[in-house]
């Protein structure tokens, strides 16, 4: 079970196996980065910017990103919008119900560190990295669609650097 995680280990021992290992890494990383399907998770104003980025002028589909309604079918959560303390366990459950490999983008000031609600708010979770592990932070209130696309490209570059032996 899970024999594919042992493949790079054995390939390193074989002479010339390192080339196969890195080529396999390249194939997997390219395929994963070019088709990151994101979960439709928009709570507040940043969700409108997410919808605008997914629409025709700034298109998400050209990066291979399609929205899915269920976490079982997606491998990216773009947490767009304020996450309150009441919403936090639900976000954690959604993240848990995604299959690996899974990534999280924190979009907008509220998810990065509380945003405008950092002072004087009793109900807002100040930053979602208390709840889920975040890969890319995109500041802004709300970030422009170009910023969001830049964040997604940054995530793609991060995915392209992964190696098979680091798979969970």
């Amino acid at each position, binding site marked *: 079970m899970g024999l594919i995680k042992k493949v790079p280990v054995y390939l390193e021992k074989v002479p010339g196996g390192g080339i196969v290992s890195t080529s396999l890494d390249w194939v997997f990383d390219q395929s994963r980065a070019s088709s990151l399907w994101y979960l439709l998770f928009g709570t507040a104003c940043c969700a409108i910017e997410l919808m605008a980025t997914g629409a025709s002028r700034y298109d998400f589909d050209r990066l291979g990103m399609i929205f899915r309604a269920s976490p079982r079918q997606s491998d990216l959560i773009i947490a767009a919008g304020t996450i309150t*303390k*009441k919403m936090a366990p639900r976000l954690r459950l959604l993240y848990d119900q995604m299959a690996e490999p899974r990534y999280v983008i924190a979009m907008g000031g509220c998810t990065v560190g509380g945003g405008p609600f*950092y*002072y*004087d*708010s*009793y*109900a807002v979770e*100040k930053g979602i990295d208390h709840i889920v592990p975040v890969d890319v932070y995109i500041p802004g209130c709300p970030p422009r669609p170009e910023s969001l696309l830049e964040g997604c490209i940054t995530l793609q570059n991060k995915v392209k650097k992964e190696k098979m032996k680091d798979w969970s």
Partner: protein
Amino acid sequence: MDRDELTKHLTELFPDKIELLETGKIEPFFLLKNKDDLVAFCKAINKDEKLDIDYLCCLGGVDTGERFEVVYNVASMKKRIRFDFKLSFKYDGAEVDSVQEIWPAANWYEREMWELYGINIRNHGNLKRFLLPDDWDQGYPMLKNWDAPDFKRMPEVE
């Protein structure tokens, strides 16, 4: 009816129970001096033909630091009247009657007030938490002296 007519009409209906506050707002703002008169006052303004108040716009609590206040914004759809009134009472024994028989919208507003301030509502019937998380145990957040480990107030700017 404009501001002066409204003030005159209300002071005729409720002599000595109501007082006009000069706040500079367009809509008149009254203070109901005794909070036990609340239900009688609301029923009277609901049934009166010239006022016909049938719409409770908002209901909310205020913590001024020394006293509690409960502010009611009411309006009449047919007669095009809007005004506000408030009750003011001390922290001890903070209890208000429910006005949900007169305006059913008060149900959720009173529940929110109970949940965030701790003002008890008599005759409500459904005081359950619905805004704060289910496992909230840190008190009533909207009080002026409330504090929590991750709560920061906006610092003063010179």
